[in-house]
């Protein structure tokens, strides 16, 4: 997404909480974010995202939460939450699940919602949970090979191709139980 004032990418997503009519979100490039923030008489933070998160955490009086969130790492692409805050871009689709708790307040601030409504692809095999499942199975297969347990390795190989082709019968239920619990949990929609 581009900056609201120019063609540069918007790396700063500023949520102005002091507006009398509720929060308003600004999407700005570094330069315009700096101008905006200096006009506001606020110190220029390294990232507006961090400023927003800091504001939220300040309310909760728990600054250490930010440090904990920053260290979280996505098992698929390897970025940390701190990386995301710095660049304003996620590394892969699974980040939405890996950083779910930390992204939720941001999503509520930007969109006022946590539930997609609208178009869905007819081919729904492209879920990040499935990508994660494939990765897990590949790790297990590698371990089985290392242990010279070729029977298990071969079973896992078949399983991987089933998941990849979208024909696996039980994976989605398992995967939801394994991985999706938090994601499926009820979160208040603001």
């Amino acid at each position: 997404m581009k900056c609201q004032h120019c063609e540069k990418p918007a790396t700063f997503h500023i949520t102005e909480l002091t507006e009398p009519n509720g929060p308003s979100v600004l999407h700005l490039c570094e330069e315009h974010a700096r101008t905006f923030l200096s006009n506001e008489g606020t110190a220029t933070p390294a990232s507006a995202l961090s400023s927003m998160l800091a504001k939220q955490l300040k309310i909760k009086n728990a600054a250490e939460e930010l440090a904990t969130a920053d260290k979280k790492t996505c098992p698929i692409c390897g970025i940390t939450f701190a990386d995301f805050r710095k660049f304003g871009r996620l590394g892969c689709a699974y980040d939405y699940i890996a950083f779910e708790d930390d992204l939720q307040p941001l999503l509520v601030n930007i969109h006022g919602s946590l539930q997609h409504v609208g178009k869905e692809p007819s081919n729904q095999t492209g879920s990040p949970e499935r990508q994660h499942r494939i990765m897990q199975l590949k790790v297990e297969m590698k371990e089985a090979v290392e242990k010279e347990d070729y029977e298990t390795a071969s079973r896992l190989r078949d399983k991987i191709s089933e998941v990849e082709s979208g024909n696996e019968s039980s994976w989605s239920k398992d995967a939801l139980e394994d991985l999706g619990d938090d994601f499926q949990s009820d979160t208040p929609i603001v």
Partner: protein
Amino acid sequence: MRGQGPESDIVMSSRIRLARNLSEFPFIRKCTPKDRIAIAMSVHRALDSLPLSADTEYVDVAKLGDLDRQFLMERQLISHELSESQGARAVILDPHERFSIMVNEEDHLRLQVMQSGLDLEAAWQRMDQLDNQLESKLTYSFNKRLGYLTACPTNVGTGLRVSVMLHLPALVATKQIDKVFRALNKINVAVRGLFGEGSQFMGDFYQISNQTTLGKNELALVAKVREVVPRLIDYERKAREFLVNESRQDLHDNVSRALGILCTAKKISSEETMHYLSKVRMGVNLGLISDVKIPTVNKLFIHTQPAHLQKLCGHKLSVTDRNIERANYLQLHLAKRPESEIN
């Protein structure tokens, strides 16, 4: 930008874009050069297997020179990000410029549909069909809860950005534009200036678009942007009326002088050109200038930009030479010579 379609005196164009990512690759910032090539190949292959390929051109942006990239950018067929980034990237072009598909921009795919004037519903219908075609051959990253997953959380959900480009010179002249911006921001509609470099809003063009992409379906998001447009048109019309009533003579003088400068200058920058073309455009729409047509003015906004000017000229030009060439070009098309209308 043909100057056609409903409300085309104020609404320049409608645009809809979708952000999509392929499930088997990481998002762009974590893509290796090989990933980028593989994404471009997957999209190219998908396109080749669709009827769409017969009428479109797949352009390898990495192989284009500076001038060609800038040319596509000035026509809004590619973004600044796609033009300036590194590595494998492409754009699929429709020869009639009704849509373009950027590959390896901020997201793996950025589909955009353009429409002259205000016709968002038609634009969405075409976008939906285009998306369905590609989706039949590609696996998009999608999650039931958060919808289409995008590199930036500001686009997640529908991945939809609906925007309308408006020409609002009277709201600028009467200094009411900031008030309008503040009102729009409160209802989650973003406004930004167009054609400007840096923070400079040029030519009095403003683009309004939805800020949220999650929690409302595509048609609701289209409707949200669509609903504010008549109000903006109304404000702009009232501001124009006010300017005419306050002093028709002053306004007539102002727009005529703008035309005078464009017709007689010997050197002119693109910023100055935008500034005066905007006044001329309002003058034509208010019937104060009779011998210039709106489609001509709309085309001049594009053709006087640096890459277009150099393309028309057939070779690269220095800034000074561009300013001279631009003045010649404007004179040729705006001076009282009806045969010089751009076709």
